[in-house]
């Protein structure tokens, strides 16, 4: 009994553990939700691309306002929004598809970030300020995470039907007078907001992991959108809890430990999912 207590409860006697877990759980909820839409819309690599595009915004904010958390957050947010909304706009106004537009814009932003940083008079390690650590979460970080996650859950509740339609059949949605473009832009804005908050509080590895792995895992088990959302969020929460404990007991970097737990869930799902797993496909041939 006491061994179980030491294993599961003892670590949370430390406040940094409670805050780290809380921030992972809070952003795990919104990440689990947004991730599902990203996976279904084939925008799974958007997070990765976005993380690079934040650099010039953060560098400019640092140059103008120093290392205040709020300034760096808004700097990153503006750069991220310009990339996301810019590529959405490019894909609608030109022949270029959205993924190519995204790829082009993010590398452009990344390069301007590198150029800007190399021209800065003193080179504090900006990447360090750009990407947080789940063990270094402060009270203001938690507040930010809660606000962003709350906004995301609220948007999913209120606009559930529009999100569902836009995710599965954007052409139909537009043909029947739905505000597809608007929903899409709103969704991109939410994603950027969440990713910037998550990167700054928890680090890039964990942020990207939380936004992708639970959603792909859930995709392997679920057919209905609603159950996929619930499964994804549950997996994000479970992975965060187990991962931070692994980090505590085994002495592994915390963000990486949580991502590895989420990754284990994903690999298990990819192999053993009864309908969409690799083993089933190999035994029966073709997708079920």
């Amino acid at each position, binding site marked *: 009994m006491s061994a179980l207590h030491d294993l599961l409860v003892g*670590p949370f006697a430390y*406040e940094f553990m409670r805050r780290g877990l809380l921030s992972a759980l809070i952003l795990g909820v919104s990440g689990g939700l947004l991730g599902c839409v990203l996976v279904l819309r084939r925008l799974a690599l958007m997070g990765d691309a976005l993380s690079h595009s934040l650099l010039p915004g953060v560098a400019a904010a640092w140059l103008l306002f120093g290392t205040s958390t709020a300034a760096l957050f808004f700097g990153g947010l503006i750069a991220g929004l310009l990339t996301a909304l810019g590529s959405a706009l490019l894909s609608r106004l030109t022949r270029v598809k959205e993924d190519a537009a995204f790829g082009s814009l993010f590398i452009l932003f990344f390069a301007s970030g590198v150029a800007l940083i190399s021209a800065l008079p003193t080179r504090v*390690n900006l990447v*360090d300020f750009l990407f*947080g650590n789940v*063990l270094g979460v402060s009270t203001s970080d938690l507040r930010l995470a809660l606000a962003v996650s709350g906004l995301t859950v609220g948007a999913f509740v209120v606009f559930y039907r529009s999100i569902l339609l836009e995710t599965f059949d954007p052409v139909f949605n537009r043909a029947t007078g739905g505000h597809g473009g608007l929903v899409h832009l709103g969704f991109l804005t939410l994603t950027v907001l969440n990713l910037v908050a998550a990167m700054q509080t928890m*680090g890039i590895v964990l942020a990207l992991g939380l936004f992708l792995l639970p959603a792909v895992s859930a995709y392997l088990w679920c057919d209905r959108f609603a159950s996929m959302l619930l499964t994804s969020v549950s997996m994000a929460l479970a992975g965060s809890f187990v991962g931070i404990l692994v980090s*505590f007991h085994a002495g*592994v970097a915390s963000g990486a430990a949580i991502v590895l737990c989420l990754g284990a869930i994903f690999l298990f799902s990819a192999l053993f999912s009864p309908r969409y797993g690799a083993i089933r496909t190999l035994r029966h041939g073709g997708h079920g």
Partner: protein
Amino acid sequence: MLLVAARAAGGGAPPLNVVTLNSVLTEVAREVGADAVHVTGLVRPGVDPHTFSPTPADIRTLADADLVLASGLSIEAYVDRLVAGSVFGGRVVRVGDRVPLVLSLPGRGGSGERDPHWWHSISNVIAAAEIVRGELARLRPESAADFARNAARFQGRLAQLQSWAAREVDRLPPGRRLLVTSHDAFGYLAHDYGFEVHPVNGLSTESEADAKHLASLVDLIRRQKVRSVFVESSANPRLVENLLQETGARMGGRLYADGLGAAGSGAEDYVSMYRSNIATIVDGLSLP
């Protein structure tokens, strides 16, 4: 123009062109070489040498140098690549590879990895002045006597600094010589004055902490009643701030870990940098 200035100053030959990759070595070269050298410090004070990488203009400066002084001990990975590409016209001296005291890192499985922050032992800087004197005398034998005189004067100041620092640290009872800092850069200082170092992060400013390690630090600070925890001038203080909140220890102030401070920081030269570090540590740890 420089040439004219040097001639006007009375020297026959143009000044030797010395380029340094470490702000401490910039000062050593200026002190020892005086009028007979023109020193360019590529890694400016306040910049983190772990993350510095040279621009094309920097490389041209390196190629034109008569003598390049590098920190050595593998802190500048790019130097090896530049040497392999035979970028340098003159001689490259990795000063750290030749100083008398080189510490290896504890707790790394005896991998023999060396701690690159050698300049935090004053004896090493005294030796560095000797190494630089030898190199300059080889390049410009006719000024050898000047270099020897300059080096001796500089070394005299360092010896004074050494006895001042020893007196200051003597004010701290041995039980209080516990140094908790954001990254592991003070092994040499600890070695010279009998401190125990407990870094939050690893040796480089880029390695990441894990929960187990952070928890053991919290326990240590509480058990030993450590009064103050220190951060480095070029690191993100987030993790340390959490540590302070959790334990009630105070922020002891900023230490200069990876070279001299920027202009106006009060640590622009080696002696004031070292005095600032020692004063910050002794004041912070001797709090009631």
